[in-house]
């Protein structure tokens, strides 16, 4: 190679990767350099030869396998979503079960006053903390209550969010 031109520019020209005025400069050089014209021709032939080849074909069942794999993966994703939804539903039921008996402390006091609630045990922390700051507290009231329909007493559990001075 006696031509000092960077022949990589020839491939770039062939691929349309050179912008003007660079592309014009390379074309001008090609007009007057037989060596680079020959190289350019070889590059064109090589490109054409490669373009004419075909990739190796995949197995006949490749498409089906991929479609099935995607289906399984997406199915797995949906199953995970269903599982999480189930867990969320159970958590919601547990929260409702715990929260349902929560009534105001006043209601609890009223029940006691009417005698409809007979405390078996009441756990009531002091309404003022050791520093004298009023606290909110929770009554745990385990009572025997008359059933709504039969009047028969059944054990009941009440958690009452209480205000200071209520007890």
């Amino acid at each position, binding site marked *: 190679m006696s031509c000092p031109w960077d022949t990589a520019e020839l491939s770039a020209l062939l691929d349309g990767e050179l912008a003007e005025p660079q592309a014009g400069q390379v074309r001008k050089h090609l007009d007057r350099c037989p060596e680079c014209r020959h190289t350019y021709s070889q590059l064109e032939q090589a*490109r054409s030869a490669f373009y004419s080849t075909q*990739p190796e074909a995949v197995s006949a069942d490749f498409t089906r396998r991929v479609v099935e794999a995607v289906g399984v993966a997406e199915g797995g994703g949906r199953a995970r979503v269903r599982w999480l939804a189930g867990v969320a539903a159970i958590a919601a039921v547990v929260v409702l079960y715990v929260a349902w008996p929560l009534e105001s402390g006043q209601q609890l006091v009223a029940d006691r006053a009417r005698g409809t609630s007979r405390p078996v045990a009441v756990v009531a922390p002091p309404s003022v903390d050791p520093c004298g700051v009023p606290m909110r507290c929770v009554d745990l009231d385990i009572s025997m209550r008359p059933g709504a329909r039969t009047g028969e007493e059944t054990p009941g559990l009440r958690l009452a969010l209480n205000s200071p001075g209520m007890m």
Partner: protein
Amino acid sequence: MGRLTDEQLILDHRAGLPGAMDQLLVRYQDRVHQFVRWRTGVGQTEAEDLAQDVFLQVFQSAASFDGRSRFRTWLYAVAGHVCSRWLWDVSRRRAWIVAGVSEGAAALEVSDLQPNALEALQCQERDQTVRAAVGALANSQRIVLLLRDWEDLTYEEMAVVLEVPVGTIKSRIHHARLNLARRLAPVLGREAEA
């Protein structure tokens, strides 16, 4: 109705339209498989497994395709990542083997990973010669020809896919074509005379 673009098909797949995925697969599976095979140097079966991983990732993460690049650039970028990860795993295994962690295991030879350059092909003589010449190129050179001449990616897109500078792509393509031309000189010379 005209042929749907790749970008339309991936949107259709996202929307749950049946058949879109199959069309994209049929369009690209052979070339992606070839890309994976040349990138990693594995045999046909393992290359199919890797190509399956590529398509699995593409279709599962279709929502992340933002349309800023062409679909095929994104597809080959995913393929490139899958291959890089595989190569990294292989190199780690090799390091373990060399370090004697896996005593008695045969060391993985680079030659084991190379495709048979002169694989028998039941084609015409010219096609056989061209394929043999292509097979004799380095994997890195075949890859750039595949992306450029089969997939029509720009140098910039190829640089993204292969994670190398544009200048490297330019040089690699040029040397790949010069090598190919040199190997095909007898055939191309006969054709020029005829």
